[in-house]
């Protein structure tokens, strides 16, 4: 027995010293949930890449466990058939759905095979299908389904409407996702009744859970509308690595202060198996992701089916004709500078209502209209009235006490006079989601180890216990970050509240 053990061990050690290069690199785009209740459907999306230097044929997805099926044609980057993978470096996505009515737990695979099983690969162990199936029934209350996104994940993320002008840069638009209509019926959970604090809290918690789901997928920051699109190697004649802004851009950031994060590439990558520099840079992983306002619009769609504009300035309420690119909430006036209102039935309208300094939302009528009146600087913003094409921020206008008035799911828009270059027109260039959580180790806190570095604060920046935590997509993609003064708090253009004010 010992002889066999040592023989195998020596072989494995000697082999490992020469590196590891699976024939097919199978990496998760969307990981399947670790547990399902019988009756739920699990979904996993993998990128399959021909990692060899050879043209391979007879490629198949094989040995799918009982109850696991491959979904056909969920979007433009999915494999129509695996023979398209025959060229070296060619890749596509596969979507698998898991029927949890089977007995037993699922583990292993999916297996990609070529030449009748001569060459076979599967995801690394941490990325393989692994789902514990527990006995039903599925909980039917809203409270039991705060983080149940099974139904959303079975729906295509990508709109079937293809815009030939942007399909190879921004990629497909988002598909309108629907809440589960039965088992459980979650369509009854969202509310516009602000007095129904239970359902409002449910929406706030579900919104943060939805963003948390995508934070854990470790996407990059890209100018894309959806999470399952990658910028093609050549985008309308431009090599994707040469795209500096606009559609198809993905962050090429590899490191930033503080250096003690010790990152190899993406800040929270392990450096092993699928989380390597090579996988991120050379195997297409860094070309998936969404930008800040596409992340917030995708997340509200994912959580509730609530839709609003995915452009940062338009989502903030500025008009789509470009006439309000330098208008701030406090610099509105009744003549030409009145920001837009949301419309739940218009997927291109702004996201909810603007928030006032006292934590309420703006009205357009009555004695408290316009957060106490136009010209009174009653909006939650560092920019004051009157209107100016180069408004000057007043960071002191956002006090620590005011932050306590924000609610989970509130969207905070950042503005920079003259814009910061990412957006060539609007001064509103970034949006983040307020979590209502702090850095810490309590049950409702976010541990410091989950806080991503960010690129704009000083080099000695570190998360401190008690710091407010937001979620946003910039630098290397959607992550938890500290609501630092230097970048976020000092540049608040305005805050919008969706929950309680928009319908799915």
């Amino acid at each position: 027995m010992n002889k066999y053990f040592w023989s195998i061990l020596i072989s494995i050690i000697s082999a490992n010293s020469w590196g590891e290069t699976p024939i097919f690199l199978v990496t998760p785009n969307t990981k399947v949930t670790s547990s399902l209740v019988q009756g739920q459907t699990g979904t996993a999306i993998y990128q399959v890449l021909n990692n060899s230097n050879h043209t391979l044929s007879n490629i198949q997805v094989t040995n799918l466990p009982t109850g696991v099926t491959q979904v056909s044609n969920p979007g433009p980057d999915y494999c129509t058939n695996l023979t398209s993978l025959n060229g070296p470096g060619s890749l596509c996505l596969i979507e698998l759905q898991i029927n949890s009515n089977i007995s037993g737990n699922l583990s292993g695979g999916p297996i990609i095979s070529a030449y009748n099983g001569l060459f076979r690969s599967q995801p690394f162990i941490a990325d393989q299908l692994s789902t514990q199936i527990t006995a039903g029934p599925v909980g039917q209350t809203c409270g039991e389904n705060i983080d149940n996104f099974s139904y959303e994940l079975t729906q295509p993320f990508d709109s079937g409407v293809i815009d030939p002008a942007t399909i190879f840069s921004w990629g497909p638009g988002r598909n309108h996702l629907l809440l589960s209509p039965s088992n459980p019926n979650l369509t009854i959970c969202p509310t516009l009744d602000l007095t129904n604090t239970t359902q409002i809290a449910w929406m706030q918690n579900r919104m943060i859970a939805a963003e948390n789901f995508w934070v854990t997928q470790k996407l990059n920051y890209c100018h894309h509308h959806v999470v399952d699109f990658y910028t093609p190697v050549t985008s309308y004649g431009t090599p994707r690595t040469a795209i500096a802004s606009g559609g198809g851009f993905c962050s090429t950031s590899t490191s930033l202060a503080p250096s003690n994060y010790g990152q190899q590439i993406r800040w929270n990558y392990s450096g092993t198996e699928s989380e390597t520099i090579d996988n991120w840079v050379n195997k297409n992983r860094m070309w998936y992701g969404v930008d800040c306002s596409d992340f917030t619009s995708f997340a509200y769609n994912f959580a509730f089916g609530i839709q609003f504009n995915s452009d940062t300035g338009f989502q903030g309420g500025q008009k789509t004709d470009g006439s309000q690119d330098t208008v701030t909430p406090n610099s509105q006036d009744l003549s030409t500078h009145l920001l837009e209102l949301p419309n739940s039935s218009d997927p291109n309208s702004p996201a909810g209502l603007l928030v006032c300094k006292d934590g309420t939302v703006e009205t357009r009528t009555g004695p408290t209209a316009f957060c106490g009146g136009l010209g009174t600087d009653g909006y939650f913003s560092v920019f004051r009235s009157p209107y100016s094409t180069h408004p000057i921020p007043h960071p002191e206008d956002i006090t620590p006490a005011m932050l306590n008035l924000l609610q989970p799911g509130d969207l905070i828009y950042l503005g920079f006079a003259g814009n910061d270059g990412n957006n060539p027109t609007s001064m509103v260039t970034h949006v983040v989601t307020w979590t209502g959580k702090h850095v810490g180790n309590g049950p409702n806190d976010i541990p410091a180890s989950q806080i991503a570095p960010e690129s704009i604060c000083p080099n000695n920046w570190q998360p401190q216990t008690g710091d407010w935590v937001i979620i946003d997509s910039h630098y290397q993609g959607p992550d938890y970050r500290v609501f630092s003064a230097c970048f976020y708090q000092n540049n608040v253009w305005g805050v919008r509240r969706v929950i309680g004010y928009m319908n799915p």
Partner: protein
Amino acid sequence: MKKRIFLACLLMIFLPIVSLATIRPVVTVSSGIARANVYSSKVIAFAPFQNTYIGSNHYDTASDTGLFIGGEAVFQPNWAWQLGLSYFQNSSFIESGNVYFFSDPAFNNLTYQYQIQSRRISIDTKISHAFEKIWHPYLSASIGSAFNKAYQYTEYPVTTADLPMTQPFANHSNTSLTYSAGLGFDVDITEHWRLGAGYRFVNLGNVNLGTTPLQSSTGTISNSHIYTNELLAQISYLG
């Protein structure tokens, strides 16, 4: 037919002895260790590609046990000659190595292992000289047939993302010429019993695995010669 030739040879050797001296029947049980270098490498075609199987150059140790049945004749003062048939069998040697897909070391995705077992029937002979009546240093030699088997080919993934091929190389047995040469000593412990110890060099012959339906050629992983160095303890009964 082979058996008849073998028996004829045996008689040709034995008959003169029978005519010269008194023959004591001998039964010897031997057991010990055999150490062999089971290294081999092979390029196998899987059209349109080829994979290389690089054996790890290593020595492996197995047990070796056998039975000798024959006779001993004294043909000069203090000189004795044993002749007879022996059967030896070793526990499995383990051959292991690395699979290079496309014969490219960058695609060292699997390691492999298989086992080799040899069973041998030989004409075995031993010449010894007695010192102080009880010590019998000897020289030995044998020649015969080896029935070698390569089996249980198994591939092991290098990483959790790799998987072995679905149809491994098959088990395979073949017959090969085997021979040995050795030395050692026996010591009388009673009139009828001897203990002994010895070293011998053995050529087990060749062995190879079977093929897999996935390959496009007939080549397979093989060892053209397996040489062993053996240390054996022996106990003999002489009638």
